[in-house]
Structures are given as structure tokens and as C-alpha cells.
């Protein structure tokens, strides 16, 4: 009982923490809507950054020690500023989305007005999610002090995550089960009853798509409405046609929107960049602008990838309906929802594996991984510039040390091999120079089942080690 109490207390606390985070993020997003404020904040930060650098370099190391607190503050500001850039990018994206939606609504039928509104809301949610992800400061919602080992902790987290997805499907199937109890299995009827919003949420959960969910929710809503309005024997073909008609043109528009957004962002950065002296700071800002290009490319690819996953999800659901229909026609039936859910996992798993085996999916996924790697590399370059004035070892400097260390290890190994070969050569003489304590070869002499606790003593050559 105590454990259950602790579980629900934690659950409640986590819900509250998450809500607080969302509220904070909303405030941040709102604060960034004024571009003048944004520029002003950016310039203030840059001035302070420059001032701190000047102070520290002018007064030497002792001054640096005195400035520890200032540096911490500066670092925080730098990270705040970075987040501000990202939030502004989000804001810009939302504006473009709104413009696009306005245009779209004016030219489309009344049927799409609701879609546009939903899309706008979805855009807001997605950018907030993305910002939340970027800032990475969310309290761990699965903090469970009673878990004493990480394996149990991970297993519980996994179980909890799986339960969230399970709950979504249970909720979606609830009305169908009620019907089933009255009238039995009816695939056509159930197909129309599927809450596509709920289904999309499920797919988002399973594939972890929420963090960068751009606009597909509203498309799926519209799609599901169209589906529900259809009632003819060629339903499946109509679904396919409507999907192509609705989604593909919008995907092309999305591509144009993203490119426009990138142009706008570059234009936004340009005046800020011109305010700066032609030095590292400017380089840094240019690199940040460059990274933004990667982000827009990434969003575009991700939108396409999500489209494929949703589409395949729908196919999986259709196939599932057919399989279950056959099952019921053969006199078989589900014992309960768990039984059905297991069958769904089996069927949908096969469908998604089919998708993942396609060239199109592989290409998209490859592009996303490559873009992500490129962003990481460019961010590292930005950090290199940011950290240059600070008394910290930068990545490039660490790499130099690693490389030297690697070369030395190789050289020692090679020399030891040569010495050993000399020893086994007839008429060999002891070398003139001998290092009694090489740093990299060690021999174990103590038996223990725990590798980490094995006592190791240095030896001059690994091959001279003896079995205990």
C-alpha cells in the first residue's frame, strides 16, 4: 500500500512539474514575439559577452578566477540566448504557417477552415514541444527514488511508456467494443468509428513523433472526417485517392513554406550580424544561421517521414480489420482487449517493417540522420568559437591530445614488438634503452569474478603474461 501511495504521489507530482514546464515555455515563446526586443536582447548579450572576454583577457588568470560567478552567469546567458534563437525560429515558423493557412483557407472550400485552425494549433503545440526538447531542462517525469538499480528503473519506464500507448488504443476501441457486444464484429462500421486523432496520438507515441510534430494532425483529422463521410463499397480506394489529393499538394506547399522560412530567417539574422565587428562573433552568428538551414531541411524531411508513417499506420489498421474479419468469420474471437492488442501489434509490426524496407523510407531516414549529424558538427563549431576566450579545453584541443596519445600508444606497441622479435632472434643483444614501466601493458594476477576489481600490475610486454 505504501508503494502504491508513493507511486501515485510521484505521478501527481510529475504531472504538476510537466504542467509548470509548459507554462514557462509558453511565456518564453510569447516574449519572443517582438522582434525589436529580440534584437535588443541579442545585442545586450553580445555586449556583455565581449566585455567579459575583454576583462578576463586584460587582467590575466587571477582576474579570471575572480570572475567565476560572472562566467557562470555569462554561460547561462549564452545558453538563454541560444534558446532564444531557437524560439525565434519557432516563432517565425508559426508566422509562416499562419500566412500559409490564411492563404489556403481563402482559396479552399469551407470544409478546410477547421483544418487550418487545427493546423495552427498543432503548429503551436509542435513548436512548443520542440522548444521544450531543445532546452532539455524538463524534470525527469519518471523520477522514482525507490528504484535501487537502473535496470529496474529502465524496465519501469519502458512499462509506463508502453502503457501510455496501450491506453490510447484502449480508448479508441472502447466504442467499438460496446458495439461489438450488441451487434458483433462489423469491420465497415468500426472503420468509420475510428478516432483518427486518437490513432495519430498512438502512432506519435510509438514512434516518438510528438516533439517535432508539424502539421499532420490536422491533415489526419480532415482525412478521418472524409473517411467517416464516405459510405460506399469502394471506401478503401476513396481513402487512398483522398489522401493523395489532400496531402501530397500540401507537402509540396510545405516545401515552399520551409524555403521561404529559411530565407526569412536569414534576412532576420543579417541586420544583427551587420551590427557586429567582422570577427569571431560574426562567424558564430553566420554559423548559427547556417545551422538554421539544417533545421528547416530536417523539418521538411521529418514531415515527409511522418506522412509515410501515418499512411502506413492507416494501411496497418485496414489490414488489421480484414484479418479480424476473417478471424470472426471463421468462428474465432478475441478473449479481451489484451488479446486484440497483441494481434494489432503483430499485424502492424509487419506493416511497418514493410515500410522500413522501402527505398523511399531508407532515403528519408538517411537524410535525417545525415542532417542531424551535420547540425551536431556545426553546433560544435559554434561552441568552439564561444569557448575560445574561456580557460576550458575545447573539443579540437582534446582531439589533438587524443590523437597524440593514440600515436604514442601505437609507437610503443610497435617498439615492443620489435624488441620481442630481437629477443627471439639468434645472437640477439639486450637493447641499450629499456623502459621498465610502459604505461599501456598490464597483466592480471588475481582471480576474481568481478572484472572491475581485478588487481593489475604493469608488465613490460603482454606476451610475457602467464596464466594464473
Amino acid at each position, binding site marked *: 500500500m505504501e508503494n502504491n501511495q508513493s507511486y501515485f504521489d510521484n505521478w501527481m507530482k510529475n504531472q504538476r512539474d510537466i504542467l509548470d514546464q509548459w507554462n514557462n515555455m509558453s511565456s518564453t515563446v510569447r516574449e519572443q514575439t517582438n522582434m525589436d526586443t529580440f534584437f535588443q536582447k541579442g545585442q545586450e548579450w553580445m555586449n556583455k559577452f565581449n566585455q567579459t572576454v575583454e576583462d578576463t583577457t586584460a587582467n590575466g588568470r587571477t582576474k579570471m578566477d575572480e570572475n567565476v560567478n560572472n562566467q557562470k552567469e555569462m554561460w547561462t546567458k549564452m545558453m538563454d540566448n541560444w534558446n532564444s534563437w531557437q524560439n525565434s525560429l519557432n516563432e517565425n515558423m508559426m508566422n509562416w504557417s499562419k500566412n500559409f493557412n490564411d492563404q489556403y483557407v481563402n482559396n479552399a472550400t469551407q470544409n478546410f477552415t477547421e483544418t487550418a485552425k487545427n493546423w495552427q494549433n498543432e503548429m503551436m503545440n509542435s513548436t512548443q514541444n520542440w522548444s521544450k526538447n531543445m532546452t532539455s531542462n524538463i524534470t525527469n517525469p519518471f523520477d522514482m527514488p*525507490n528504484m535501487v538499480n537502473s535496470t529496474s528503473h529502465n524496465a519501469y519506464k519502458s512499462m509506463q511508456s508502453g502503457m501510455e500507448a496501450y491506453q490510447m488504443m484502449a480508448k479508441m476501441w472502447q466504442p467499438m467494443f460496446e458495439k461489438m457486444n450488441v451487434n458483433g*464484429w462489423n469491420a465497415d462500421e468500426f472503420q468509420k468509428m475510428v478516432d483518427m486523432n486518437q490513432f495519430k496520438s498512438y502512432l506519435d507515441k510509438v514512434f516518438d513523433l510528438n516533439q517535432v510534430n508539424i502539421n499532420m494532425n490536422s491533415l489526419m483529422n480532415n482525412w478521418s472526417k472524409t473517411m467517416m463521410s464516405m459510405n460506399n463499397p469502394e471506401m478503401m480506394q476513396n481513402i487512398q485517392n483522398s489522401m493523395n489529393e489532400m496531402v501530397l499538394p500540401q507537402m509540396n506547399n510545405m516545401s515552399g513554406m520551409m524555403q521561404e522560412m529559411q530565407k526569412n530567417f536569414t534576412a532576420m539574422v543579417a541586420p544583427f550580424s551587420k551590427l557586429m565587428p567582422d570577427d569571431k562573433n560574426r562567424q558564430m552568428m553566420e554559423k548559427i544561421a547556417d545551422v538554421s538551414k539544417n533545421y528547416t531541411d530536417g523539418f521538411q524531411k521529418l514531415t515527409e517521414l511522418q506522412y509515410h508513417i501515418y499512411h502506413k499506420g492507416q494501411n496497418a489498421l485496414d489490414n488489421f480489420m480484414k484479418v479480424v474479419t476473417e478471424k470472426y468469420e471463421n468462428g474465432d474471437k478475441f478473449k479481451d482487449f489484451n488479446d486484440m492488442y497483441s494481434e494489432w501489434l503483430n499485424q502492424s509490426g509487419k506493416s511497418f517493417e514493410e515500410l522500413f524496407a522501402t527505398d523511399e523510407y531508407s532515403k528519408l531516414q538517411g537524410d535525417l540522420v545525415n542532417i542531424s*549529424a551535420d547540425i551536431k558538427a556545426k553546433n560544435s563549431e559554434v561552441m568552439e568559437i564561444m569557448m575560445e576566450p574561456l580557460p576550458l579545453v575545447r573539443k579540437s584541443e582534446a582531439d589533438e591530445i587524443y590523437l597524440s596519445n593514440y600515436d604514442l600508444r601505437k609507437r610503443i606497441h610497435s617498439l615492443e614488438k620489435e624488441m620481442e622479435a630481437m629477443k627471439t632472434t639468434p645472437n640477439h643483444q639486450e637493447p641499450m634503452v629499456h623502459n621498465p614501466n610502459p604505461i599501456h601493458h598490464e*597483466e592480471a594476477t588475481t582471480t576474481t569474478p568481478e572484472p572491475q576489481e581485478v588487481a593489475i600490475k604493469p608488465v613490460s610486454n603482454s606476451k610475457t603474461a602467464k*596464466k594464473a
Partner: protein
Amino acid sequence: MSENTEELKNPMDTWVDMLQKMAKGYENLSQIENVDVATAQKELVWQLDKVKMYHYKNDAEIKVKTPVLISYALVNRQDMMDIQPDRSYIRNLLNLGLDIYMMDWGYPTQADKFLTLDDYIEMYLNDGVDFIRKSESIDKINLMGICQGGTFSVIYAALHPEKIKNLITLVTPVDFSKNDGLLIRWSRDMNFDTIVDSQGTINGDFLNAGFSMLKPMMQAGKMMNLMNIIDDKDKLMNYLRMEKWINDSPNQAGECYRRFMKELYQENKLAENKLIIEGKLVDLKNLNMPLLNIYASEDHLVPPSASIALNDLVGSTDTELYKFPGGHIGVFVGGRSQKELAPAVESWLKSRDN
């Protein structure tokens, strides 16, 4: 429409039942202090940098006198072969009288990012093999490679046939030309230069994320399985041991990963006899020792076609192909494996132990 008049429980009620199980699961999981894997007794006998070699203690009568060195993959850890006492490929081999050494590639950090494929083959593996040869006063040892460790073993045996008496490969990819298997397919569209340049040492989580996408609904399925066994402590521990192994995913030295993915996965240089290691061509025709090639018929990580090809590529006249029903991991931890795999290996080795 078909009729089904029996009352079905409301899905949300079933969900509530599951929630109660989850609360029980929380309680049970909270009481587990430690999850042990790889508990067979062994002794550290050799080490170079972070790479270690262990020698397993064996109280059974040694029936195959030539010692066996096992080379596991750099991905995940060799602990899977001794996941628990009653599901242990290692213990089964020991009980059948094999003398076993095990390479442990360790946990590379950013400081190890410059280690190359050449280093793993010609420095670590070669020194490990030489250590056994010298300490056992023998010219040749038996080499057993698992998955990527099997690929390493094939390369090594082709470069140093004079040091290897028998070669055993298990679920080992060699021919990457076929479009079977998602990992091979996906690798075609990845820029490994960009990936390595940005990460340095490749993060184990990055690799695990890719593996989990191969079976996207498996995670949800695992949750269902866990719910069903949450009250059975033995089964729960079995589950947790496997989870511990899956999550124990070492990083990979970037330069080694770069060459492995580019030259083997993308360019198929090993199967085409174009791979160069420390200036020497790896010619599979030089692989002239007896070969036992074991593959899993349902392997979703290393497709059978990538393994089977090896037997036709080597120069050896004594080759055997062993098809094991099951998946990549099931070969080692499955119930059937406990009865069949180790005896098959022991029998094959014993007949070639002169």
C-alpha cells in the same frame, strides 16, 4: 458481419487492470537490488589498453585440447552468451570440456576515437591470439567469432591462417551485397563520414535506436509480456537480465566504425577480396582451415544471405554450414539452443582436434 454474442470487457476496464498490474510491477521492481549477468567464473589474463582477455575456469574434463578464443562484436557485450546460469552458451561449452578464452573489447571513450579497424584486428586480436599461443605453448588456436566479432575473426584468419586451427563463425555478416536485412539497406543511405566526424566515438544509444526501429512494435509487445510475468520473480529476473544486456551498449571507436560501415557495409570489400588491413590484402582464399559457419534462419540483424556466402568464398575444403532455427539472439539464449548448439560445436571441434 459476423455474430459474436459473448460479452467483452470494456477496454478501459482492461486498462485499469493493467494499471493495477503496473503498480504491482513498481513494487516488485523496487525490491530488486541487483541484476546479475555473466556470472561464470573467469580470470583476467591479458590486457592491452582497454581491451581485456578472460580465461574461463573449467572444472570439467577438457575434451577439446586446443583452446578456443571467442571474439564477440563491438556492439553490445559478450555477456549475452552467459546471460544466466541456466541459459548460458558459455557454461554449456565449458561443461562439454572446452577450454575458453574471451576477448572483451571494453568501453571506448572519446579518447579512443582514433582506433581503427586495423588496430582491432592486427593489434588487439593478434596480440590476444599470440598470448594464448605462447602461454599454452601451441602454434594454433581455435577461433570463434560472433556477429561483428565473427567478421573480425574471418579477416584475422585470412591474414594469419598459420595461427588458426579451426574457425567457427556464428551469425556473422560477410557478404553485404544482398539487399536483405534493414541494416544493410539503411546503411546505403547514411553518410558515415558526417556521422563519425560529428560524434567522434559513436554513441551506443545511437546504435540501439537503430536496432529498435528494426522491430518498431517490439517495445509495446515487451510491455505486454512484462505485465504477464510481473508477479513471477524468476521470469521477471530473466526479463531484467536481458534488458540489462540490451541497455549495456558500449560506444564504438569512430575510425573503426567508419571503415567497417563504409568498406564492408557499403562497399562490400571483404567479400570482394578488396579489403586492406595494415597494407595487406585480406584474401578469403587464404582462409584454409576448417570452417563451421552457423547462421540463424530468422535473423533480422544479420540476414542469412550475408552469412551463408562465406562458405563459397573461402579457400578451405572443409566447410560446414549450420542452419539454426531462430533469431540473432535466440541462437544463444533460446531453449533449443541450450540443448543443441553447444553440443554441435563441441562435436565439430572434437573431430578436428588432432
